[in-house]
C-alpha cells in the first residue's frame, strides 16, 4: 500500500543525524548539534503522528480488523537458505504504530529537555549523536518485519544503551555499569539467538507475518500433538525455543534474575535513563512477546505464556520490595520500572486471544504506553531535581516544594498516575491488568494487588521526602526551577499523563487485531479495592514521611535482617559476581589459559628444543648475516618467476 511509502524516513532521519553529528562532533558546537538532533526528531514525531492517524483512523481498519501493512526496503539483505532470509522491511500494524508514537514522543521530549540538561557539557554533541543512534535503533526495532531484523536492532539498541550509560567515560562507576549492562543483556541475547535459530529451523521462516499465521502455528502444534518433534524435560522443543526468546526479552526488560544491570544503568545521564531505561528500550521484551503473541498463545496450550506471567509477577513483587528501601532516587525509579514492566509481562502472560479475552494483551500495551509517559516524566523530574541539588540521594533533599513548584506538581501527577489513582493514566491501564489477572488466576491477581499498594507507598515516600519532610538548608546555592527547555518537556509529559488514560485503547490495539469494547466499571469491587489499596499506600507514606518522624527508623529496626537483605537488593549482584569471577574466571578461564601456555605450548616447545639441538649440529650453514638470507631468498623467488615467464 502506497500511503505508507514515506515510512522509511522515520528511521532514516535519526540515522542521518547520527552519522552527521558523529562525523562532525568536533566541529559543530553546542547548541547547534542539539538543534540538529531535535529538528530531526521533530520531523520523526510529525511523521509518526501522521502514520498513527493514517493507520488507525483512515486506512488500517479493513472489514473490522487492523490489517498489517508491510513495506519492503531490501528483500534478501542476507539469504540464508531458500526460505530463510533477513529481509529488511517495515511492518505497520497496531503495536508498531503505537510504539512509533511512544518512541518518537519520549525521544523528542528528551531531546528538548537535554538542550537544558546537558548545557555546558563537553560531550554535548556526542550526546546528541548517541541519542540519534538510539532513536534510530529503537524505531528500527519496533518497525521490524522479520525476527532476525528485530535481533539486529535489538543489538543496536543494546550498544546505544552501552554508549549512553558510559557517557561519562572518565567515571569508573559509569564504565563498569555500561559494561555490566552490555554483558548481561548479551548473555540474554545469546538465548534469544538460539531461540531464533530454533524457531527458524522448525517454522522455516523468520518473517513475522508467516510466523504468526495460523498455518504456521497449526502445523507446529500438529507436530507437537503427534510427538513428531523432540521434547525436553516434558516440554516440546518449540516451547523451549519460545522460552529462550523470552529470556532475550527478560534481559532487555530487566526481569528477575537478569535485572541486575538496570539499577547500575542509572549511571548514565538522567535524560538517558528516562528515554532508554524507563520508557522505550526496557519495554522491548514486552514488545517482543507481543510481537510473537499468536505463536506464544497457540503453541503447547500457551505454556510459554505461563512462564512469562510467572516471571513478570515475581519481578513486579521483587522489585517493588527493593524499591521500598532504596535511598538513591534514580534507583527507586529503576526498581519501580522493573516492577511496572513485570506488570506488563504479567498482563501478557494472563491474556487470552480473541475479543474480550485478549484484555490482558491490550492492558499490557496500554500500560506500556501510559507507563512510558509517566515514568519518563518521573525520571525527567528527578533529573531536574538532581540538577538543582547536585545529589541523587534523598537525604540531601527535602522541602523542595517551595523552590521547584512546577517540578513538584508534575511529580505529583506522575506519582498519582503510577499509583493508579483516577483519573490519571496509570489508573486505567493498571486496572485493566488487574482485571485480566483476576480472571486468570487469583494468586497472580493478589500479587499485582499487593504490588499496587507498595508502588503507591514507595512513590509517595519519594515524593514526600523530596518535596516536604525536613527543610534542608541548601546554603548559598538555592535550588532553582528547571530552565525553559526542561520545564517544557515536563509540562508536556504531565499533560500526556493526565489525558493518556482516556484513549480508547481496546479500539486500537488487541491481540487478534480486532477492536473490542472495554470500559471501567466504576462500581466494580475490584476497582474500588485497588484504588483503596493505592490510597492506603499513599496514606501510610504521608504518615511516615510528610514530616520528619522516627517511624522509618523504627520500622527498619523492627524488620531486622529482612530490611538489610532488601536494602542490599537480596545480594543478587554479589551472587553474580561470585559466579562470574570466582567460578568462571578463576576456575574455567584461568585454568584454560594456563593449560594453553603450559601444556599445549609446552609440548610444542619441547619439539622446538629438540629441533634446536639438531640445529646446533648443522649451524655451519648459517652465516648469521641477514642480508645473505634475504639475498638467497629473493634470488630464489626471482628464479621461480623467471621460470614461469619463460614457460608461458
Amino acid at each position, binding site marked *: 500500500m502506497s500511503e505508507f511509502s514515506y515510512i522509511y524516513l522515520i528511521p532514516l532521519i535519526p540515522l542521518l543525524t547520527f552519522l552527521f553529528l558523529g562525523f562532525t562532533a568536533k566541529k559543530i558546537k553546542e547548541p547547534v548539534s542539539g538543534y540538529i538532533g531535535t529538528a530531526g526528531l521533530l520531523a520523526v514525531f510529525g511523521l509518526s503522528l501522521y502514520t498513527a492517524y493514517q493507520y488507525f483512523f483512515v486506512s488500517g481498519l479493513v472489514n473490522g480488523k487492523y490489517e498489517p501493512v508491510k513495506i519492503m526496503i*531490501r528483500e*534478501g*539483505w*542476507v*539469504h*540464508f*537458505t531458500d526460505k*530463510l532470509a533477513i529481509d529488511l522491511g517495515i511492518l505497520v500494524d497496531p503495536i508498531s504504530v503505537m510504539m512509533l508514537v511512544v518512541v518518537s514522543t519520549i525521544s523528542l521530549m528528551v531531546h528538548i529537555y537535554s538542550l537544558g540538561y546537558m548545557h555546558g557539557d563537553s560531550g554535548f554533541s556526542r550526546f546528541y549523536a548517541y541519542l540519534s543512534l538510539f532513536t534510530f535503533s529503537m524505531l528500527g526495532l519496533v518497525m521490524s518485519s522479520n525476527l532476525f531484523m528485530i*535481533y*539486529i*536492532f535489538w*543489538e*543496536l539498541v543494546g*550498544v546505544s544503551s552501552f554508549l549512553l550509560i558510559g557517557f561519562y*567515560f*572518565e*567515571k*569508573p562507576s559509569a*564504565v*563498569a555499569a555500561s*559494561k555490566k549492562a*552490555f*554483558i548481561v543483556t*548479551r*548473555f540474554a541475547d*545469546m538465548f534469544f*539467538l*538460539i531461540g531464533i*535459530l*530454533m524457531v*527458524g*529451523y522448525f517454522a522455516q521462516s523468520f518473517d513475522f507475518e508467516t510466523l504468526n499465521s495460523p498455518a504456521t502455528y497449526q502445523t507446529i502444534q500438529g507436530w507437537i500433538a503427534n510427538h513428531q518433534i*523432540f521434547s525436553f524435560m516434558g516440554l516440546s522443543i518449540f516451547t523451549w525455543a519460545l522460552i529462550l526468546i523470552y529470556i532475550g526479552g527478560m534481559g532487555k526488560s530487566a526481569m528477575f534474575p537478569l535485572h541486575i544491570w538496570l539499577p547500575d544503568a542509572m549511571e548514565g545521564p538522567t535524560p538517558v535513563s528516562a528515554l532508554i531505561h524507563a520508557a522505550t528500550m526496557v519495554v522491548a521484551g514486552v514488545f517482543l512477546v507481543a510481537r510473537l503473541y499468536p505463536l506464544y498463545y497457540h503453541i503447547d496450550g500457551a505454556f510459554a505464556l505461563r512462564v512469562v506471567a510467572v516471571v513478570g509477577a515475581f519481578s513486579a513483587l521483587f522489585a517493588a520490595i527493593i524499591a521500598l528501601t532504596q535511598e538513591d532516587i534514580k534507583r527507586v525509579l529503576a526498581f519501580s520500572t522493573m516492577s511496572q514492566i513485570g506488570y506488563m509481562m504479567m498482563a501478557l502472560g494472563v491474556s487470552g486471544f480473541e475479543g474480550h479475552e485478549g484484555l490482558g494483551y491490550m492492558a499490557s500495551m496500554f500500560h506500556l504506553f501510559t507507563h512510558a509517559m509517566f515514568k519518563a516524566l518521573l525520571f525527567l523530574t528527578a533529573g531536574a531535581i538532581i540538577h538543582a541539588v547536585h545529589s541523587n540521594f534523598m537525604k540531601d533533599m527535602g522541602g523542595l516544594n517551595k523552590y521547584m513548584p512546577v517540578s513538584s506538581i508534575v511529580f505529583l501527577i506522575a506519582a498519582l498516575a503510577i499509583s493508579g489513582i483516577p483519573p490519571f493514566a496509570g489508573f486505567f491501564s493498571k486496572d485493566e491488568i488487574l482485571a485480566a489477572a483476576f480472571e486468570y488466576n487469583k494468586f497472580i491477581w493478589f500479587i499485582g494487588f499487593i504490588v499496587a499498594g507498595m508502588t503507591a507507598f514507595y512513590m509517595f515516600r519519594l515524593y514526600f521526602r523530596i518535596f516536604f519532610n525536613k527543610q534542608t538548608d541548601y546554603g548559598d546555592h538555592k535550588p532553582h526551577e528547571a530552565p525553559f527547555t526542561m520545564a517544557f518537556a515536563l509540562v508536556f509529559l504531565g499533560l500526556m499523563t493526565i489525558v493518556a488514560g482516556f484513549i480508547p485503547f481496546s479500539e486500537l490495539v488487541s491481540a487478534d487485531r480486532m477492536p473490542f469494547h472495554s470500559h471501567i466499571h466504576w462500581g466494580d469491587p475490584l476497582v474500588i479495592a485497588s484504588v483503596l489499596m493505592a490510597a492506603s499506600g499513599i496514606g501510610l507514606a504521608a504518615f511516615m514521611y510528610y514530616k520528619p518522624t522516627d517511624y522509618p527508623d523504627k520500622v527498619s529496626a523492627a524488620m531486622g535482617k529482612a530490611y538489610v537483605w532488601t536494602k542490599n537488593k537480596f545480594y543478587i549482584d554479589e551472587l553474580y559476581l561470585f559466579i562470574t569471577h570466582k567460578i568462571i*574466571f578463576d576456575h574455567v*578461564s584461568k585454568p*584454560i*589459559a594456563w593449560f*594453553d601456555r603450559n601444556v*599445549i*605450548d609446552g609440548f*610444542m*616447545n619441547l619439539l*622446538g628444543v629438540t*629441533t*634446536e639441538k639438531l640445529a646446533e649440529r648443522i649451524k655451519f650453514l648459517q652465516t648469521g648475516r*641477514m*642480508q645473505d*638470507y*634475504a639475498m638467497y*631468498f*629473493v634470488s630464489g*623467488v*626471482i628464479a*621461480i*618467476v623467471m*621460470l*614461469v*615467464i619463460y*614457460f*608461458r
Partner: protein
Amino acid sequence: MDILTLFVVVPVLIVLAMVLFTKDLKQARMVTLIGMLVQLGMSINLIVRYMDARAAGNHAIMLFEKNVPWFSEFNAHYHIGVDGVSVLMILLTTLIVIAGTFVSWKIDYLPKEFFISLIVLATGVYGFFISLDLFTMFVFYEIAVIPMYLLIGIWGSGPREYAAMKLTLMLMGASALLLVALLGIYFTSSAGGQAPTFDLLELAQRKMDFEWQKIFYPLAFIGFGTIGALFPFHTWSPDGHASAPTAVSMLHAGVLMKLGGYGIFRFAMYLMPEGALFWQDFFLILAVTGVTYGALSAIQQTDLKYINAYSSVSHLGLVLFALLMINKTAWNGAMLQSLSHGFITALFFALIGMIYGRTHVRDITKMQGMMRIVPFLSVAYVVAALANLGLPGFSGFVAEMNIFVGGFMNNDLYKQVLTAFAVTSIVVTAVYMLRLTGRMIFGPTTKIYTNLPKAFWYEKTAIAILVLFITLIGTLPFWWLQFIEESVNNFIQPLIK
C-alpha cells in the same frame, strides 16, 4: 601476459625496482605504495571483469584460466584461475598490504629490506589464491610462509628469535603433513591408469579411493588447519603475533591465516569429500573447542596482542567450524568470516602498533583513559571492539549469523548442540572486548601518558581503509555474498548428495 599472472609479476617488479633504485625509507615506501596502488587497480579491474563475465552468462567454475606445463616430468602445471571467493581474497590482500604500508610509514630499521619482505609475502599469498594446481599452490604457500621468519626475526620485538623460530617451525611441520597429503593425492590419482596429476579440476573428476581419503584428508586438514589456528595447533600464533612488527601481524592474521580455511575449502574438502564426511564429527569437536577455548583464554590475557591472538583463535575457529558444517549457508558464512576477520584483526593490530609506538606498553592494566589522550585511535579501537563482538552494521555480525544459521539448519541434533556451544562465544567475546576497552580506553585520564602525539595522517588513512571495508561488508552483505555464493555452490557439490 594475462590478468592473473600480473598479480605475481607486479610485486616482483616492485621488488626489483626497490633493489635497484631505492636508497632510503622515503623512496622505499613510495615505491611500495605506488606498486600496491597498481595492485589495487588490478584487483578492482579483476572484480569488474569478473562481474562482467558472470553477467554475460559465463558459468565456468573458474574464470581467466591459464594452464602452462611447468615440470613436465611429474605433470605439474602452472594452472591458474579465479572464482568469486578468490577474487575477494585478492582484494582483501591488496587492501591489507596498503594499510600495512601506511602503518609502516615511519619504520626506521632497514626499511628497504622490510618492504621487500612484505611484498614477497604478499606475492606468495596472491599466488596461492590463484593456483589451481596443487604443486603451484604449495610453492606459493611456502613463499608466503618463509618471509615471516625474517620479518619477525629481524624487525620483531621481545623474544623475537624464539617467536620466529616457533612460528616457522610449526608452520613448516604443518606444511610437511600437507605435502604428504598432496603427494598422496597426486599418486593415488593415477589409479584409473591415467598419468598422475596435480591439477585441481582434473583431480575432482577422478574419484579418489575412500580408504585413501580417510588417510590423507586429516593430514591435509591439519596441515591447512594449523595456519588457520586449529586447536590444538594454534600456539604459534600468540607468540608469533606478540613479537611480529605491526604490518606483519596485520598481514599475517589478516591474510595468511585465511590460507588455512581457504585451502580446506578449495583443496582438502573438494578433492576428498568422503574423507571430509568421515572425519567431520571429530574435527567439529576440535573446531568448537577452539571457538570457546580461544575466547575463554582471551579473558585472562593482559597483553593487547595476546588478547587479539586468542580472539583470532576463536574467530578463525568459527571459519573451520562453518566449513565442517558442510552446507551452503555455513560455507557462505565461513568465507564472509574470513574476509571480515581479515579486516577486523588487521585493524586491531594496526591500532595496537600505533598505541604501542606511543606508550611502549601493551599491557592493558598499565594504560587507562586513553580516550582523552589519543581520541582518534581510541574511537577506532572501540569500533574495532564492537565489530569484533559482532555488532550488526559491521562485518562480523553477518558472517557469524550465516555460520550459526548454517550450523543449526543441519538436520542433526549433534550439530545443533555444537552450534549452540559456538554461539556462547558471542558473550565471551563481549566480556573480553569490553574488559579491554573498560581498562584501557575509558576511565580517568592518567598522568603518565599525557603528551602523546595524536594520530598522524598516514595512521588515519590506514584505519579509514579498514573501517570502511568492515562497514561495507556489514551493511551490504548481499554484494559480497553474490561472489561467495556461486563459488560455494560449485565447491560444495561433491559433499552434498
